[in-house]
């Protein structure tokens, strides 16, 4: 279908984009890569009065080394994220999960910031941001503020960003030495959405798992941190048995739903099995 008519603003700076967003009111929509927004517009699930294109805002581009973290412009494409040397060296879990998003043509356009702000429960990157304790920098008419991933995702396709705020950059803390990682994704078709996904990072010291971070995709209205699994893995033996035991609590705190792809109890089964696999691979077991 053809989208509804809307006005178009090509922002040249973050301030410019925020001003347009304020002027546009509640029916303004921010466009980054557009790979989620365009289907929504074509299906007329959204009818914005104005679309504010941020894809040429240079302040929202670029990947920089900030010492203990990597700062990624919200407008960085998936293709840039998965091929960037800084990200591959310091936060490889993000690169690995990004490589599973959609297909190459969509990854050329779609952006990290767009995927996080869109907050699709089946999106791969919110769970990674949550597991890695990423921090979002958002800018609105009152200025800039930081939102930790744990406070960003509030409901289906909903974040704690205000209507007049724009996600500008994402700070991802570096994984130190001794960390392994894995993103496990279950999908029915090649470029399909995750029916369930598990992002795992594990710090191992010889025969012991020091600590683990586990984020779950599509096990609730937003990404879920598998805190019970993380606690069970803290100072646990790095063995297949202890990982399997810890993974049994993967569904604690989840609210899986049933849809045409999977029933809730099947998703819960997947979460346990895939958490076991993701943690084992991340721990090199």
């Amino acid at each position, binding site marked *: *279908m*053809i*989208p*509804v*008519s*809307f*006005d*178009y603003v*090509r922002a040249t700076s973050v301030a410019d984009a925020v001003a347009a967003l304020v002027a546009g009111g509640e029916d303004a929509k921010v*466009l980054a890569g*557009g*790979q989620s927004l*365009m*289907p929504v*517009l*074509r*299906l007329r699930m959204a009818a914005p009065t104005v*679309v504010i*294109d941020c*894809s040429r805002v240079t302040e929202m581009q670029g990947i920089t080394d900030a010492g203990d973290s990597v700062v990624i412009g919200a407008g960085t494409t998936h*293709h840039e994220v998965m091929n960037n040397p800084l990200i591959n060296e310091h936060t490889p879990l993000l690169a690995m999960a990004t490589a599973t998003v*959609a*297909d*190459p*043509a*969509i990854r*050329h*356009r779609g952006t990290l910031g767009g995927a996080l702000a869109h907050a699709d429960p089946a999106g791969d990157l919110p769970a990674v941001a949550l597991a890695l304790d990423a921090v979002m920098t958002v800018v609105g008419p009152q200025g800039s503020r930081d939102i930790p991933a744990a406070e960003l995702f509030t409901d289906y396709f909903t974040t704690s960003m205000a209507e007049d705020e724009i996600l500008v950059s994402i700070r991802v803390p570096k994984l130190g030495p001794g960390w392994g990682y894995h993103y496990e994704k279950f999908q029915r078709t*090649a*470029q399909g959405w995750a029916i369930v996904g598990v992002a795992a990072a594990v710090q191992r010291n010889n025969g012991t798992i020091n600590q683990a971070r586990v984020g779950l995709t599509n096990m609730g209205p937003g990404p879920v941190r598998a805190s019970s699994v993380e606690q069970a893995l803290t100072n646990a033996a790095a063995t297949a048995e202890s990982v399997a035991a810890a993974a049994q609590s993967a569904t604690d705190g989840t609210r899986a739903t049933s849809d045409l792809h999977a029933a809730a109890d099947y998703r819960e089964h997947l979460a346990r099995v895939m958490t076991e696999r993701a943690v084992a691979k991340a721990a090199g077991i």
Partner: protein
Amino acid sequence: MSHIPISVTVDGTTYDSEVEPRTLLVHWLREDIGRVGTVVGCDTSSCGACTVLLDGQSVKSCSVLAVQADGQSITTIQGLAEGEDNWHPVQTAFKECHGLQCGYCTPGMVLATVDLLGENPTPTEAEIREGLEGNLCRCTGYHNIVKSVQYASDLMSGGAR
């Protein structure tokens, strides 16, 4: 809603045009400048039939607004050959290996392949299948499409495979 002026280079020719902001790139290519070699398939970002190269990268032209292409350069299936008798090696390979049945997905498959081989000149079979995962062939002619990509890789890298 006002029209927006855009200037886009398509297959080597620059077109100055005025578009409604909602105009999809694929519709502008087909209806405004007559580049009908780029086809609309699923209209849901899934099938890749409308794939073109935007500044050298494969994109689904049903998922880009025409205004977003302002100032950029597009290659469609109609701009790939250097002339009637001088096809792009990927086109030659799809013909030689019969990498098509009904042919509807072919423009997108060929352009996705050009992009894939640009990034990875000698892909494995698995890398080919993954690299083309955003392009669907509803005749399910994938086997010969993979062969075509392998043959194109041979042609372009002088048999380095």
